[in-house]
């Protein structure tokens, strides 16, 4: 099983663990992740304005390059996934935008959203299969009560992301079961932690992240897992009312598969 892989800039610096464990776990599962040679920063956020073209071009370039490779493109960071998926959707379904973007880019062959973008979690669920993962777990995290934190970017807008039911997702809970732990369902798992304003409005970021972390703790979770470096930072740094730890889901996966060093 071979996929193109888009790490994103944060995974090369502050979120090395998300990337490192993701790669190790993939290897253990027999999945080959080929890093796109010429990926560019996705921009971190998808501009909802229709007349914002230039800021979306870097994402289009990565998508077009993945098309040349011919494999599905796997992402890991929630924000990158959201940006790439939404940009790809616009290239596919917004003829005005794709015409303008293609005009700027002057590719040999115009790009019209041909690349299939999937998140690492979708790769685990739909390609590898959670049952297969459960079979390969050597070090099950038995007894651990884990709260999945989806945040906003992984699921919404649901019509574009199409990963799971945006109001009652199960993909990370199923993942938690696959690695032998017990999922904790809590109501704020799909509410925003305030990550985008963490620099600009600490008070708001604190308020929102505390709400998420407290809700998870109140429902008996030992830890929170996430796919987003910004959420991880925000929940660790700004949610000061509880000391519940936050990990990347890939770290736990690597641990369960016995490949965490």
């Amino acid at each position: 099983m071979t996929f193109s892989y888009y790490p994103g800039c944060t995974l090369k610096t502050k979120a090395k663990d998300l990337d490192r464990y993701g790669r190790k776990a993939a290897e253990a599962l027999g999945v080959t992740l080929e890093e796109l040679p010429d990926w560019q920063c996705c921009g971190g956020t998808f501009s909802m304005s229709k007349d914002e073209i230039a800021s979306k071009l870097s994402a289009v370039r990565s998508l077009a390059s993945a098309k040349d490779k011919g494999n599905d493109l796997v992402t890991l960071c929630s924000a990158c996934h959201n940006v790439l998926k939404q940009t790809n959707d616009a290239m596919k379904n917004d003829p005005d935008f794709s015409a303008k973007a293609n005009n700027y880019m002057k590719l040999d062959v115009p790009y019209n959203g041909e690349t299939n973008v999937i998140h690492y979690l979708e790769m685990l669920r739909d390609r590898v299969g959670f049952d297969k993962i459960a079979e390969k777990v050597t070090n099950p995290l038995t007894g651990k009560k884990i709260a999945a934190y989806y945040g906003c970017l992984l699921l919404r807008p649901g019509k574009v992301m199409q990963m799971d039911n945006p109001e009652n997702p199960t993909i990370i809970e199923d993942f938690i079961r696959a690695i032998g732990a017990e999922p904790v369902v809590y109501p704020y798992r799909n509410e925003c932690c305030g990550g985008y304003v963490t620099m600009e409005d600490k008070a708001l970021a604190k308020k929102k992240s505390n709400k998420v972390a407290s809700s998870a703790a109140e429902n008996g979770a030992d830890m929170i897992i996430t796919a987003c470096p910004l959420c991880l930072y925000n929940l660790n740094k700004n949610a000061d009312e509880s000391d519940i730890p936050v990990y990347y889901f890939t770290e736990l996966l690597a641990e369960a598969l016995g490949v965490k060093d």
Partner: protein
Amino acid sequence: MSKVTKEQVLRSSGVNVLKCMRCGKCSATCPSYDEMEYHPHQFVYMVEKGDLEPLLNSDSIYKCLSCYACVERCPRGVEPAKVVEGIRNAVLRQSGMNHIKAENIPDMLDEDLPQQAIVSAFRKYKR
């Protein structure tokens, strides 16, 4: 500031504000509600009325977390967050209206802060 028109905001956001049936679910679901002077449903209604000035001058445009909760839950498919972003971009595109200045950034950083926070802040608050 040169005049920002309703048409400009509608075109940029791609939103049809006339679809709104005034249920207020966007504001009911907004995680930044208490921080905002004008709330998502007011953005939609005021743009429809062409009453843009108060929105252009309000801090509320920087309080939207772009979490898509209102987009997801609106029963009419209005997508209020796109209206907020349309207004914010109209403001940012005016010269000298950058909400974040590069020279202030170092003060906001700490050693764990991921890149994407900075990148996206630039995208969202600066032209």
